């Protein structure tokens, strides 16, 4: 009964979505209050049905109901409970159900918390949200139905792909989807604004929190995915410029740009059309991201053809929403009234700079990811665009962006003073230069670029805090006063500083790992020792262990530093008999924010085993930085105050800008 209940609930959700896609639009057209009000209840009840459906599928997984084909194909009765639950979204069909679940969740949240929205805008937003939902319900029910049954329930399932049986991947997809789907709200607001033909600062006030929430989830999701790849794939790399990763990076870049331009719009009523375009682009890239990963088009263009109905449906959805959104934009955007003016050197100007670089960076990733696919589809030639391409294109775009980052918050709205901002950043410059010099002295000249990377990271980190210290008068007024002022500062200002600081932290981690990571690949026999960067690891021998649905061969190592035992590491190879696959479980030892990384290779005939040992200095900073960025977003999100960018009056003397505002 459970699977059929879930199935029926999903069909009901589709029916409600159809009503919600049409009725509120008509209501808004004729200003019929009750038809517009309809959207509120249908959005909430629609969410309840999707939630019921998702719950039903999860229950099928938990009880190993193999009469459901999807459960049979992706679960196993011996799996630990937690992976039974997570395998609900560890496959195409289930993950699409999670997608619509989150979509309906956001729709319901807008319906519940959107009380301050104008009635027509709310009706339009919920209707557009329902267009997306309708397309996805149909996609799921017709081509990727997780509730299909089989008459003879097999006794055992085929098990979840072993590399997905991991906590990291359990949390990664829901976070990523929260991000992707969160941008659908921005998209719906943008389309609604285009339909209404009216857009103003108030619009940004309503959109920004949703965008920010989505951005935070996406930031955390990407970091999580990167950390998972780092420890699970056994090569110690944290970013591979793999299409799957790029698929999540592109919406992040567009979303970050959207976040910043929405601030300009809310505070200054400027960049309105550009913000609408970014909202459409961010969600379009999220759609592409979802389908790039899910359709299998990445492994080969030909898998697209192997399941034509699914492929054609995906293409239709992409064309409908991306093409439709952009067409509507091209048609209606010129009718929107342009907003406030500003000088090139100003906070607005800085944010335009940020937007330009972010979107260009996004474009390079887009080209690097999709060009090989297009080429393969057209000519059949397979090429791979890897790290060298992205290092040459993406990095040069990000360096000026990072360098400019501390300047932004220091410029006044409307017209700023670059020189004054630079003067206030002198301390940060100084610390950056000291960092460069110190690295040169410590390192010698053989890694030329690294000191500059470190210098830039410190400049970004210190520079992010300059705004706060300037505004609180730290170092100039007594500490007690400064503390008082710091508490009084809007949390949005703190949010900016913290998020920018986090970017610097990530940069520091990346530079350090790229430059100073060291590795050794050796074949060891028991009792032999391998040493790296002052750590000595003695191979104590192999042990066989068995887990709930796997067997593992673990190699035990004792780690010493300067002769003192500091711990044990036990990398392992797991064999999952149900899929006859094996996975590598790397062993990690965290020392501060650095890590020792040990993973096993093949066993040789003479009884020795190949091991890869890496020392990754400051590697954890890469992900900690992302967490810090997320916290910055959270600070800003918690600030419910209205955002007004007080312009710097034209006649004011330059001197007053240097004074802290009292």
């Amino acid at each position, binding site marked *: *009964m*459970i*699977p059929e*209940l879930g*199935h*029926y609930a999903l*069909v*009901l959700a589709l*029916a*409600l979505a159809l*009503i919600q896609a049409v009725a509120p639009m*008509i*209501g808004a057209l*004729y*200003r*019929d*209050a*009750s038809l*517009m*009000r*309809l959207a509120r*209840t*249908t959005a*909430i*009840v629609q969410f309840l*049905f999707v939630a019921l459906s998702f719950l039903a599928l999860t229950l*099928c997984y938990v*009880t190993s*109901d*193999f*009469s459901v084909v999807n459960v049979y194909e992706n679960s196993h009765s011996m799996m630990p409970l937690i992976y039974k639950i997570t395998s609900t979204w560890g496959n195409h069909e289930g993950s699409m159900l999670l997608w619509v679940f989150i979509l309906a969740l956001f729709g319901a949240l807008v319906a519940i918390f959107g*009380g*301050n*929205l104008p*009635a*027509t805008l709310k009706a339009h937003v919920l209707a557009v949200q329902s267009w997306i939902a309708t397309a996805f319900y149909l996609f799921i*029910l017709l081509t990727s139905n997780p*509730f299909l*049954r089989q008459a003879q329930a*097999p006794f*055992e399932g085929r098990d979840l792909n072993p590399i997905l049986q991991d906590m990291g991947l359990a949390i990664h997809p829901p976070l990523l989807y929260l991000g992707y789907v969160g941008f659908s709200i921005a998209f719906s607001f943008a389309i609604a604004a285009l339909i209404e033909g009216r857009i*103003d*600062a108030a*619009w940004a*006030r309503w959109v920004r929190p949703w965008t920010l929430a989505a951005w935070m989830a996406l930031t955390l999701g990407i970091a999580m995915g990167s950390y998972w790849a780092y420890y699970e794939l056994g090569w110690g790399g944290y970013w591979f410029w793999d299409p799957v990763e790029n698929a999540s990076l592109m919406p992040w870049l567009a979303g970050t740009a959207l976040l910043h331009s929405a601030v300009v719009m809310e505070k200054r009523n400027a960049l309105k059309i550009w913000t609408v375009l970014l909202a459409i682009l961010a969600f379009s890239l999220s759609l592409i991201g979802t389908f790039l990963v899910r359709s299998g088009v990445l492994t080969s263009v030909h898998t697209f053809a192997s399941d034509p109905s699914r492929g054609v449906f995906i293409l239709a959805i992409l064309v409908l929403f991306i093409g439709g959104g952009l067409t509507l934009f091209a048609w209606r955007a010129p009718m929107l009234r342009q907003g406030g003016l500003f000088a090139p050197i100003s906070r607005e100007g800085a944010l335009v700079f940020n937007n330009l670089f972010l979107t260009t960076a996004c474009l390079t990733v887009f080209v690097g990811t999709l060009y090989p696919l297009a080429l393969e589809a057209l000519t059949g030639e397979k090429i791979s665009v890897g790290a060298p391409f992205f290092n040459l294109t993406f990095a040069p775009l990000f360096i000026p962006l990072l360098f400019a980052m501390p300047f932004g918050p220091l410029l006044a709205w409307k017209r700023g003073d670059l020189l004054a901002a630079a003067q206030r950043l002198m301390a940060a410059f100084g610390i950056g230069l000291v960092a460069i010099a110190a690295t040169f002295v410590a390192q010698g000249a053989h890694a030329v670029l690294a000191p500059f990377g470190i210098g830039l990271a410190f400049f970004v980190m210190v520079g992010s805090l300059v705004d706060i210290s300037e505004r609180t008068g730290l170092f100039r007024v007594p500490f007690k006063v400064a503390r008082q002022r710091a508490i*009084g500062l*809007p949390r949005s200002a703190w949010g900016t500083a913290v998020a920018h600081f986090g970017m610097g932290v990530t940069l520091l981690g990346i530079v350090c790992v790229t430059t100073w990571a060291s590795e050794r690949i050796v074949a060891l026999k028991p009792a032999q020792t391998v040493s790296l960067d002052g750590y000595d690891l003695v191979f104590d021998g192999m042990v066989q262990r*068995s887990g709930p*649905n796997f067997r593992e061969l673990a190699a035990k190592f004792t780690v010493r530093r300067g002769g003192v035992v500091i711990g044990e590491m036990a990398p392992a190879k797991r064999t999952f*008999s*149900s899929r*006859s696959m094996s996975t590598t479980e790397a062993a990690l030892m965290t020392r501060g924010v650095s890590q020792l990384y040990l993973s096993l290779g093949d066993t040789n005939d003479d009884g020795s085993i190949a091991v890869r040992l890496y020392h990754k200095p400051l590697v954890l900073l890469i992900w900690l930085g992302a967490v810090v960025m997320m916290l910055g977003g959270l600070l800003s999100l918690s600030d419910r*105050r*209205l955002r*007004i960018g*007080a312009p*710097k*009056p034209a006649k004011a003397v330059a001197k*007053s800008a240097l004074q802290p*505002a009292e």
Partner: protein
Amino acid sequence: MTLWLVFALMTAAAIFAVLWPLSRRGETPGGSDIVVYRDQLDEIARDRAAGLIGEAEAEAAKVEVSRRLIAAADAADAVKAVSSDASLWRRRAAALAALFLLPIGVGAFYLFLGSPQMPGEPLAARMQQANQNRSIASLVSQVEAHLERNPDDARGYEVLAPVYMRMGRFADAVNARRKLLALAGESAMRQSDLGEALTAASNGIVTEEAKRAFERAVALDKDELKAAFFIGLAAEQDGDRTKAASIWRGMLEGAPADAPWVPMVKEALTRVGGTAPAIAPGPGPSTADVAAAAGMNEKDRQEMVRGMVARLADRLKENGGDVEGWQRLVRAYMVLGERDKARTAAGDAKRALASDPDKLQRIEGMIKELGLEG
């Protein structure tokens, strides 16, 4: 019954979600941009009081926001206030759609997709059922589950392997027999069982690996008859009919006449054109019987061989780099007496292997040996 009752309740909830907002009257308490700008003005006043922005900035900001406020108020006046007395028929149409189209549409779509007649079958429930009515399949999965927990239990594999063979799960049979070899130690019989499973898994072709297993079995025990038979079959498939014939003849020479495998070997021997040696007299089929049986089975056997050959040809069409496969195919056609096909296959092989001079040479050698030139 319960299922339909729950469906009905859910449908009612969905209809209610549409009808309820339609039934209520009055203004929707909606916000507007005017409210936001008023709030912004208040915020500016608060910020100035708190000393977060300067006097001049606050004034400038206030001017800007006021301008937006006025524009918004003008726009709001231009559009008529949201009317609550909308025409009744629109609301009625929506209500009718919810009352009739929704249940009918949902019901039809669900019946098209779903399987309401099938109860859910959680594993726990099926386990109980299985105990009362044990099918082979459920027994197999129970042994499998047992092996999952105790992967070193040789008995489990010993039980499973022949069942797998009978069920046609040859790949599993290969695995089980490999495990058994590793766990229970090597014996001639286990080796030749493995070879048999490998042969079955590759559609009756004695692969290199299978052949190694049989040879190992014969090395362990020269009287291991199954292995000997398959080594003969391997020779036949390689086109070496004389060798096959001599192996099989050897088997028959040492055999008691009533051994159950004798007819099969004789038949194989006839196929490669050898003559069966006289067997020590005893109760057994007459020569005529054997001949008849051989003749009758020959057709079936040919059928089977043709099937195998067709599969091999298909595989090579997709993966042309397998030189042994090509050799086997060409020889198989020769055995079947289809000289034209053998020549075509040899031509295909030369094209497929054109990039590899080493393999090409082997094919050309074979063509000469079989006299297929031209």
